[in-house]
């Protein structure tokens, strides 16, 4: 299972529809401060079901929608698609047969989210089920946010234990 691309439209500073392709196993992302690099990671965690605004550096869940800039008006909604190549059948359960898996999430200004799985509307739970057993998810240890790498080893003994249990 490989991550093929992420498409963002109206998500944070990605006001225009933008496709981020990941053509190989080792992809670097570079650019000036404040240009939108960490917003891409927020988009991945958001489309996988992240529900806390604070974890997405916002105050309300609708803060992920493009808020306007010097020359652009705020938008009314945000959409992110994430497309996987599942030709190895790694994604389990009823989806193992799908060669490609696309998950989509959209949100409007009232904070109402809709989830889609290969084009069909579904619930948030269904997205979580897709990733069950793969170690992936909105708070997966496979996603290290900026400035948090050392926090892991500084956590209290019972937190470190929980972390290990989650991975078992």
């Amino acid at each position: 299972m490989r991550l093929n691309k992420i498409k963002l439209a109206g998500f944070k500073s990605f006001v225009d529809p933008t496709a981020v392709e990941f053509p190989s196993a080792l992809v670097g992302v570079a650019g000036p401060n404040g240009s939108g690099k960490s917003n891409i990671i927020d988009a991945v965690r958001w489309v996988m079901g992240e529900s806390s605004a604070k974890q997405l550096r916002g105050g309300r869940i609708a803060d992920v929608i493009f808020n306007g800039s010097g020359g652009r008006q705020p938008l009314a909604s945000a959409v992110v698609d994430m497309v996987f190549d599942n030709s190895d059948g790694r994604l389990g359960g009823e989806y193992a047969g799908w060669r490609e898996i696309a998950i989509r999430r959209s949100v409007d200004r009232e904070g109402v989210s809709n989830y889609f799985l290969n084009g069909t509307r579904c619930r948030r739970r269904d997205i979580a089920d897709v990733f069950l057993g793969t170690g992936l998810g909105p708070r997966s240890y496979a996603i290290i946010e900026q400035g948090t790498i050392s926090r892991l080893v500084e956590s209290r003994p019972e937190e470190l234990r929980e972390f290990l249990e989650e991975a078992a």
Partner: protein
Amino acid sequence: TRERFKETFERVNQRLDELFQRLFGGGSGKLVLTGEELLDAGVVITARPPGKKNATIQMLSGGEKALVAVALVFAIFELNPAPFCLLDEVDAPMDDANVDRFCDLVKDMSANTQFVLITHNRRTMAVCHQLIGVTMQEPGVSRLVGVDVDEAERLAVS
């Protein structure tokens, strides 16, 4: 679940030590249980950088802590390898020698796992197969540009 935890603990511990030695070029890193009772004991990390005495995580330097954390994440990762791994500027506190060791490790692991590395460090950019540039030529609006390492470095300057 007691058996399961014990097995996880031991496997991560072994892998942690191997990755620690690789990232630090020696020494050793270990997980220690804080209590007798397997089912509710806490877990702490002890680290011994090469040539130094055993230290608690608190006494380590900023760069040393980042290395231990990478070793732990990757040790857990290998137990249950997620298909991709996103790292946001984890190389920021590292000096060049440690960045090189970190990049070597990531290069090896990318045989089984897909990595996306956000970085300002030229050395890390250089080991990536592809580089994605993110800019805000129009203020407040993010856009992607294709770049090579030299351009990416210039991009971070613009």
